[in-house]
């Protein structure tokens, strides 16, 4: 019998809330984490709004030692460690064990690491001062920095690694972790992802003109997934973490179970057909969704809600079309669909995990969080999906099956299916 995988702990460091309590309240009420960004304005970015987790010095000290914070400039590691340690604690797992825990590992993704530290290092090196980089330039800037920090803080003894697949990273981390537990190679995997923040991460997107430049004066209205007036995404950052656990192990520990990970699928469109470096191949997207359902042993008609990728660009209509075709459902028969990006912007490599935490909270507590800034639904989308399935107000309803999908540059796709956990 195939091993079952459940979620027994979660953590989040999002632009609209740090920690599950704050985040749950924020997503239920549609609280925005998007604000005017003086730094981007000073640097003459087109888009001068952003979504960043607000981490106080006090919070930093809860997760890092004074020594670790000396010369520390790696936002992605900061957010990831906060979310990861929260998930571990939330799952009721021990800190300060004497031995490495060989049953537990982590796959925690990132796009880059320590971009601030990297910038500082480059200036020093070009100034012929490489000798003054200090001892932590490597660990802060290596791609696996976040798992290197987490692995030590949690004493993880199983696989400790970082995955990277653009905006699919977080969803991919969950499915890779799921596979490792299903195959019996680990009892517990901390799955998550994180993203650095700031101009050196977001500049490339600004240069591509894919970020909105129309809402510098009204930041909270800037991120408009599925809206007729969607004008590009709002750059964001943050981290989410989910503690995936073998069901037997979770039951034996008497752990709280948030939801079950039923399965999913990861694929790529190979940049063929309509696919390219930056655009998804619809054939692959639809196949990713269908295969995710098949792998999870459910049918399209069973799906109650979708947490979309939906970045607030012109691609939103195409994504909806892909869902309608993959599921064979449309109009009033379509599942509920929402996009967290309306309140937290696009957290890039952190997006899949932050949004998955939101999706799992919906499953656990029975609600569909409201889509902000979507009163003017795009007519192409309105023609495919009934208005009431794209709620702009909180809907309290029990959800049995929720799909979370992410699509990333390089034409890569991920779709995971979460289920309400029912005791037999």
């Amino acid at each position, binding site marked *: 019998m195939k091993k079952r995988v459940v979620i027994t702990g979660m953590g989040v460091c999002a632009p609209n809330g740090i920690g599950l309590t704050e985040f749950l309240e924020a997503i239920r009420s549609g609280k925005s984490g998007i604000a005017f960004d003086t730094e981007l304005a000073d640097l003459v970015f087109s888009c001068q709004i952003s979504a960043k987790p607000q981490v106080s010095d006090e919070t930093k000290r809860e997760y890092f030692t004074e*020594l670790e914070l000396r010369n520390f400039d790696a936002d992605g590691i900061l957010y990831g460690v906060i979310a990861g340690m929260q998930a571990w604690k939330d799952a009721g797992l021990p800190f300060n064990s004497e031995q490495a825990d060989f049953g537990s590992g982590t796959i925690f993704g990132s796009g880059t690491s320590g971009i601030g530290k990297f910038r500082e290092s480059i200036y020093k090196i070009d100034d012929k001062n490489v000798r*003054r980089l200090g001892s932590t330039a490597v660990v802060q800037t290596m791609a696996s920095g976040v798992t290197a920090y987490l692995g030590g803080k949690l004493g993880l003894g199983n696989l400790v690694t970082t995955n990277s697949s653009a905006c699919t990273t977080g969803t991919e981390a969950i499915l890779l972790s799921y596979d490792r537990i299903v195959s019996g190679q680990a009892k517990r995997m901390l799955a998550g992802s994180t993203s650095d923040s700031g101009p050196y991460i977001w500049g490339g997107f600004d240069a591509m003109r894919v970020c909105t430049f129309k809402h510098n004066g009204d930041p909270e209205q800037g991120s408009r997934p599925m809206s007729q007036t969607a004008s590009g995404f709002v750059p964001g950052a943050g981290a989410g973490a989910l503690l995936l656990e073998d069901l037997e192990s979770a039951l034996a520990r008497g752990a709280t179970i948030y939801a079950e990970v039923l399965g999913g699928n990861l694929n790529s469109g190979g940049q063929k057909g309509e696919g390219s470096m930056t655009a998804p191949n619809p054939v692959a997207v639809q196949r990713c969704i269908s295969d995710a359902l098949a792998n999870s042993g459910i049918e399209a008609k069973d799906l109650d809600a979708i947490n979309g990728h939906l970045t607030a660009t012109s691609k939103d209509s195409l994504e909806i079309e892909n869902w309608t075709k993959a599921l064979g459902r449309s109009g009033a028969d379509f599942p509920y669909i929402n996009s967290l990006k309306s309140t937290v912007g696009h957290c890039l490599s952190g997006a899949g995990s932050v949004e998955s935490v939101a999706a799992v909270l919906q499953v656990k507590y029975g609600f569909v969080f409201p889509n902000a800034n979507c009163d003017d639904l795009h007519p192409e989308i309105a023609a495919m999906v009934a208005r009431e399935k794209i709620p702009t107000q909180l809907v309290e309803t029990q959800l049995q099956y929720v799909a979370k999908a992410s699509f990333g540059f390089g034409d890569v796709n991920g779709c995971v299916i979460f289920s309400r956990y029912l005791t037999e």
Partner: protein
Amino acid sequence: MNKAETIETLKSIVKPYVKNAEAFENLSEDTDFLRDLQINSANLVDVALDVEEAFDITIDNASMEKMLNVKAALEIIAAKLAEK
């Protein structure tokens, strides 16, 4: 700066890296950074950089390699200050 003052400055520099608080309280010229204070060896380079800043000196690689205890650190600081 006399030796006692130099030791005090050195003490404030190594403090954040120290894992053995008792050895730090009893710090003397004979104290070893790794064995007694249990400073992570990777952090010795940070100690050296902090010393450079505090005393406005440059510690070459060969000296840095030798800077494993309080006595050696004092000698290196004195020598580099004398070169100025």
